[in-house]
C-alpha cells in the first residue's frame, strides 16, 4: 500500500496518525534526543583518526613538499 507518489507533493498532515493527548515534543524528550544524538556522534568522533587518513595525508604532504621529507 504505497500511494506515496500522490502525497509527495504535500507532506500532508492528514497522513499523520491521530495524536495522543500529550504533545510529542516535551522538553524532556527534546533533551533525550539531544543526548542520544551526541552519544552517537561523539562515539564516532572518539575513535580518532584511522591510520588510512594519517597515511594519506602523510603521502600528500610528502608529494607536495618533497624537500621537507
Amino acid at each position, binding site marked *: *500500500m*504505497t500511494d*506515496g507518489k500522490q*502525497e*509527495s507533493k504535500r*507532506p*500532508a498532515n492528514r*497522513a*499523520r*496518525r491521530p495524536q*495522543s493527548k*500529550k504533545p*510529542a*515534543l*516535551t522538553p524532556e*524528550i*527534546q533533551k*533525550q*534526543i*539531544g543526548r*542520544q*544524538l*551526541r*552519544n*552517537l*556522534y*561523539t*562515539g*564516532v*568522533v*572518539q*575513535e*580518532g*583518526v*584511522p591510520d*588510512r*587518513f*594519517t597515511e*594519506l*595525508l602523510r603521502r*600528500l604532504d610528502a608529494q607536495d613538499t618533497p624537500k621537507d621529507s
Partner: protein
Amino acid sequence: MILAAVPRLRAFAISLTGSVDRADDLVQETLLRAWTHFDSFQTGTNFNAWLFTILRNLFRSDYRKRKREVEDSDGMYSQFLPSLPEQFGNIELAEFRTALAKLPPDQREALVLVGADGLSYEETAQICGCAVGTIKSRVNRARTRLAKMLLIDGAEDFGPDAETAAVLSRDAVD
C-alpha cells in the same frame, strides 16, 4: 589542520551514508578534494564548515547517482545500519539510531550538524546551501518526528501498524 577535522568528518559522513565503509571512502575523497582545491578556501572563514560542505556535496552527487540505480534509497540506508559500530550495546541507542535512519536526508543532516556537531544554524545553512529559516524548520521537524517515532515505539498499546510506519518514514519528501 586537516587531520584534526577527520573525526568530525567521519561522524558526519556516517550519519549521511549509514555505513562506516562508505563514510570512510567519502572522507578520503573529501580530503583529496580539499587538498587539491585548497586555494579556493577563503582564509578567515570556517575551515571545518568548508570541509563539511565539500563532503556533503560529494555525498549529494554520489547519492543522486545511486538513487537512479536503486529506487528505495531509504531502504538502502537502513540496510547498512547493522554495520555501524556497536560501541554502546544499548537498546535505547539502537532504537534511536533506527529512528534517525528513517528521517528524510535533509532533516537528518540538519539535525546532526546542529544537534550533534553543535554547529550554528548559520553555519549549517551555509553548508547545506539554504536559508537559515529552512534549517530551523528542518531541525524542528526532525525532532518532532523522532519524538513521535520514539514515543510510538515505546508504547505498545498504540504501536504503529506497518502502514503508519511507512507514512512516517516517507511523508516529508520536500
